[in-house]
C-alpha cells in the first residue's frame, strides 16, 4: 500500500432489488452483478454488503431468503458480495429461534443485522429488544440502524440517548449508524458526544456531508469509527469514494475508513 489507487473499498450500504416507488432506483436481474463488477473495476469497491429492497418494502423474511440465494451464486462471491440481514418480526413471537437463525445466516454470507424499528414497527429499546442484543453481543455481531429510524418526528428529533444506552450495555456489539436521508448528521455535537462516550458506535460515511466533517470526526475520535458506505442507488457511488480519497487524511486513515474498519469488525465476529 502507499498509493491512493491501492485503497480498496468495502461498501456496507448498497441497495438492490425492486424499489416499488421508483424504477430508476431499482436494480434487478443481471444488472446487479454487472453493477458490482463495474464498481470493482472503476472504483476499487472490492467488497459489498448488499441490502434488499424487498426486505425493506415488503417482507423481511422473503427478502432475506432472496438475498441468501443471490449471494450464494459464484459470480456474486467473485464480486465480493455479502449480505445484510433484516430483523424478522417472527422472532418477537419465537425469540428462541433467533440465535440459530443468526448462525445459519452468518454461514450463508450475512455479516450485519439491519434493524428498521420505525418502518417495520418493532421496538429496539433495551427493555424490549434485550434478548436479541444479548445474542448479538455474545457473537460480536454488528447491528446497523438508520437515523431515519431514530427520528421520532421525521424532523431531526433523533433518539441519541437510546443508542448511547444500548452501546453502553452491549459493548461487544458494534453499532453502525447510517444517516439515511437525514440531514441530522450535520448536527455533530451529538455525534461527537456519542463517539466520545462509547467504544462501539460507528458512523457510515455517505452523508457525513458537512464541511470537513470526515476529517473533524477522525481527528476527534479517530478514523477507526468511520465506515464507508455508498447508499447506492440514492447517491452516486463515486461521490463517497472521491470524498474519502480527496480528504486531507493520511493514507492509513483513508484505508481504515474505506475498508479496514469494517473488515476488522467482521473478523471479530465469533459465531
Amino acid at each position, binding site marked *: 500500500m502507499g498509493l*491512493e*489507487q491501492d485503497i480498496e473499498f468495502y461498501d456496507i450500504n448498497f441497495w438492490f432489488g425492486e424499489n416499488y416507488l421508483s424504477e*430508476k432506483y431499482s436494480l434487478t436481474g443481471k444488472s446487479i452483478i454487472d453493477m458490482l463488477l463495474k464498481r470493482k473495476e*472503476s*472504483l476499487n469497491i472490492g467488497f459489498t454488503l448488499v441490502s434488499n429492497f424487498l426486505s425493506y418494502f415488503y417482507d423481511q423474511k422473503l427478502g432475506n431468503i432472496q438475498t441468501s440465494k443471490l449471494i450464494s451464486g459464484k459470480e456474486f462471491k467473485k464480486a465480493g458480495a455479502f449480505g445484510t440481514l433484516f430483523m424478522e418480526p417472527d422472532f418477537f413471537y419465537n425469540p428462541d429461534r433467533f440465535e440459530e437463525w443468526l448462525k445459519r445466516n452468518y454461514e450463508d454470507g450475512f455479516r450485519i443485522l439491519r434493524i428498521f424499528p420505525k418502518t417495520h414497527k418493532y421496538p429496539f429499546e433495551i427493555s424490549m429488544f434485550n434478548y436479541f442484543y444479548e445474542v448479538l453481543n455474545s457473537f460480536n455481531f454488528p447491528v446497523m440502524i438508520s437515523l431515519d429510524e431514530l427520528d421520532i*418526528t*421525521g*424532523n*431531526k428529533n433523533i433518539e441519541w440517548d437510546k443508542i448511547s444506552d444500548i452501546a453502553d450495555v452491549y459493548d461487544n456489539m458494534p453499532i453502525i449508524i447510517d444517516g439515511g436521508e437525514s*440531514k441530522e448528521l*450535520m*448536527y*455533530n*455535537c451529538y455525534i461527537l458526544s456519542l463517539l466520545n462516550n462509547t467504544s462501539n458506535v460507528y458512523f457510515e460515511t455517505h*452523508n457525513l*456531508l*458537512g*464541511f*470537513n*466533517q470526515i*476529517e*473533524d470526526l477522525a*481527528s*476527534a475520535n479517530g478514523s477507526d469509527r468511520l465506515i464507508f458506505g455508498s447508499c447506492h*442507488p*440514492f*447517491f*452516486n457511488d*463515486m*461521490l463517497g*469514494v*472521491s*470524498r474519502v*480519497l*480527496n*480528504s486531507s487524511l493520511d493514507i492509513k486513515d483513508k484505508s481504515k475508513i474505506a475498508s479496514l474498519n469494517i473488515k476488522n469488525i467482521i473478523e471479530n465476529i465469533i459465531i
Partner: protein
Amino acid sequence: MPFDKLEDLAKNYLIIDSHLHLGALPYLYMPSNTEENIVNLLKKIGVKKAICSNHGSLSTVNYGLGELFESLDRYGDFLYGYLVFNPNFENDSLKSIEKNFKKNHIVGIKIHPSWHLCYPHDKKYERFWDFAAKNEIPVLTHSWDPEAPNKSQKFSDPYGFENIIKKYPDLRLTLAHAGGRGKMLYNVMSLMEKYQNLYVDFAGDIFVPGLIEEYIKRVGSERLLFGSDMPWVDIRFHLAHVLNLDIAEDDKKNILGLNALKLFDLKI
C-alpha cells in the same frame, strides 16, 4: 477518475461557487467552520470566485452585514456577496439594501422565506420585489418541497414564486436547491420551461443521480448554477459530482462557472 485529485480535474474549468455561507452557523457546530478554512479549501480545489451570504445576515438584522463587508475586504476579487432581505424588518432591511447594493463586490440579494417564516407573496415582500426587478439585481432564494417534515419549508414552495416571476419577467430569480426533495426537484423543471427568468442551483445535499442530466435535457444548461452551500455541505462532494457527470463539455463549463459569470456580471 476518483483517484485523480480534484484540483487536477478542476484545472480545465472556470469554477464559481455561487452559493455558500460564511459566519457562525446557528444551531450547528462544525469545528472547521472558519472563514479562513472555507476560503482555503475553495482555493485549493480550484474555485476561482465565490459568492457568499453571511449567516448573521439571515439571523440578525444588522450584525451580518458588517461581517460580510469585512470578508469581502479580506479576499479581494475572489469573494463576492449577497445582501439579505428580511421581510420582518421590511423598512430597515430595504433601506439597508438601497444603501449597499451598489457597493463593490455585492452582486445579488439572498432571501430565505423559510428562515424568516414569511411567504414570498406576502405583502411584506412587495416593495422588495419591485426594487429588485427595477434595479436588475439577481435574487437567490431558498426553495424546498413544502411537504417536507420541517413545516417551515412551506414558505419556500417553488410554486409560491410563480406569480412573482410572472409579474416581473426581467427579474432573474435563482431557486436554490432546485426545490430540495422528491418530486419537487422535477416540478421545478416545469416552472423553468415556462419562465425563462428562472435559474436553479443544486447546493446542499442534492445529489440525485441523473437529475442534472435531466435538467439539461429539458431546460438546457444555461440557467444551472454551481453552488455548494458550504459549510452545510462540503464542496468536495459537489465538485466531484459535476466533474464526473457524463454531459457535454460545454454544459459542464456553463454549470461550473460561465453561467454565474454572466448572471452576476463578474470579470475574470
